[in-house]
């Protein structure tokens, strides 16, 4: 059901954990639907993501997409991180089953939520970044497939 890459990122998730006094934190999803992702970003003065950690409550795909998304934004500038879309995460994982596409969307949202938190704290604007939804409702997820 899952690609080898998804299984690898599920079995050996990268960047699991927390960052104390993170530059930005974002939590998306809801427990009712069975997925919650939390991303911690440590961003330096040049707006480079020095470190990133995540915690996820969810299925294999939710864990794998969180892991891959953190890999993809690590070392990038916040502007570059904005280009890490759910499609890019899915492609990097060699695809996801159709019912799991919303997991990759959640990963993108979680990164954006953490970036938004960082932007708010520092009073800056990041091009293309809008205020994230704190909660992804069921109806919206259903529309994805």
């Amino acid at each position, binding site marked *: 059901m899952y690609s080898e890459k998804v*299984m690898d990122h*599920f*079995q050996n*998730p990268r960047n*699991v954990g*927390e960052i104390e006094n993170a530059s930005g934190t974002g*939590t998306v999803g809801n*427990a*009712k*639907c*069975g*997925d*919650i*992702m*939390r991303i911690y970003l440590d961003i330096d003065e040049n707006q480079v993501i020095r470190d990133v950690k995540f*915690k*996820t*409550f*969810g*299925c*294999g*795909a*939710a*864990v794998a997409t969180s892991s891959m998304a953190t890999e993809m934004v690590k070392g990038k500038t916040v502007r570059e991180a904005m280009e890490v879309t759910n499609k890019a995460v899915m492609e990097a994982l060699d695809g996801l089953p159709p*019912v*799991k596409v919303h997991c990759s969307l959640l990963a993108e949202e979680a990164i954006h939520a953490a970036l938004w938190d960082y932007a708010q704290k520092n009073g800056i604007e990041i091009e293309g970044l809008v205020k994230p939804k704190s909660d992804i409702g*069921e109806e919206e*997820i*259903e529309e994805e497939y």
Partner: protein
Amino acid sequence: MKQLVYLDNAATTKTRPEVVEAMLPYFTEDYGNPSSIYEFSSRPREAIAHARETIAKALGAKTNEIYFTNGGTESDNWALIATAEAYQAKGRHIITTKIEHHAVLHTCEYLEQRGFEVTYLDVDEFGVVKLSELEKAIRPDTILISVMFANNEIGTLEPIREIGEIAKKHGVLFHTDAVQAFGHVPISVDECHIDMLSSSAHKLNGPRGVGFLYIRTGLKTRSFIHGGAQERKRRGGTENTPGIVGFGKAVELALATMEERSRTETALRDHLIERVMREVPYVRLNGHPTRRLSNNANFAFQFIEGESMLIMLDMEGICASSGSACTSGSLDPSHVLLAIGLPHEIAHGSLRLTLSEETTMEQIDFTVDCIKKIVERLRSMSPLYEDYVKKHGQGQNA
């Protein structure tokens, strides 16, 4: 080498070697169509009659009350749809429960779209139907009550005899989906006043692809699968001789081993439940503590999600199942777990382990050891657990 630990016997069971052996001649030797008139077809015909007798006897029924089908789902569809059609002049109201298998629930939805009215009864926290509510739900136009014998997810045994008595008192027909129960617990259709009963061979170490519907004599019975004159003109289609023979053999063996099997499974099940409840924090047992199938254990682990658990158990060679949304193919967790009052986020963390007579104590201990490691690992990754610990500190069971 990784050993297979198969703990998903509610999904399907291993076909007993004796059953396979009994079936084999009907593929390559006695393969004649049981409906044909020549001598060559007499052996398959007799073999089917023998299987029918074994099954009828197991239920305390008559042979002409057993109709072979292709499985439990077909039997449920037949029982509900044919009864609804045959009795609609009397009324168009059906009573069932919120914890039925989809074979019953989705058939009820189909009937609702065709003008029937269905009452879905609540169950208590253990998954037991409330008899007073059942009786209250009966109306003059109620034609059928359908309540499962034992629940496939949480293993709870329903008060079938009492339900049968209520149905009889009110002159309402009573159907039970006994797919998880037949061959595992003793069933007498007369004692329980059962009018129709669905069963499937592969849940009791028989082959997949064969089942039966028991229909009490005197009921208006309509065909569901239209075709030839098989099954007393009630169920068309050339008989699945090997399957039916295998079913008969499986029932014979299930009855012979029932008492001892049930004892062994109960001991293992209770050991499993006892260890998990004692050694894993933030866990609850789903279903009734004692009134449950001897081979069923169902837990809800807080702060983690079922599919992740299943994948990690699979990596250890353990086959199990879950009622999480991800495994149900929808965004909602199991309707059974919601019906017993579990909040969504806890229902997502459910794990069902169903044993067989081949399950060993070593396998159970190995499984509990794995569960402990997996639950701990997933919790260390869970933002819900992180929040909980920050708020309440680590420790006692919730």
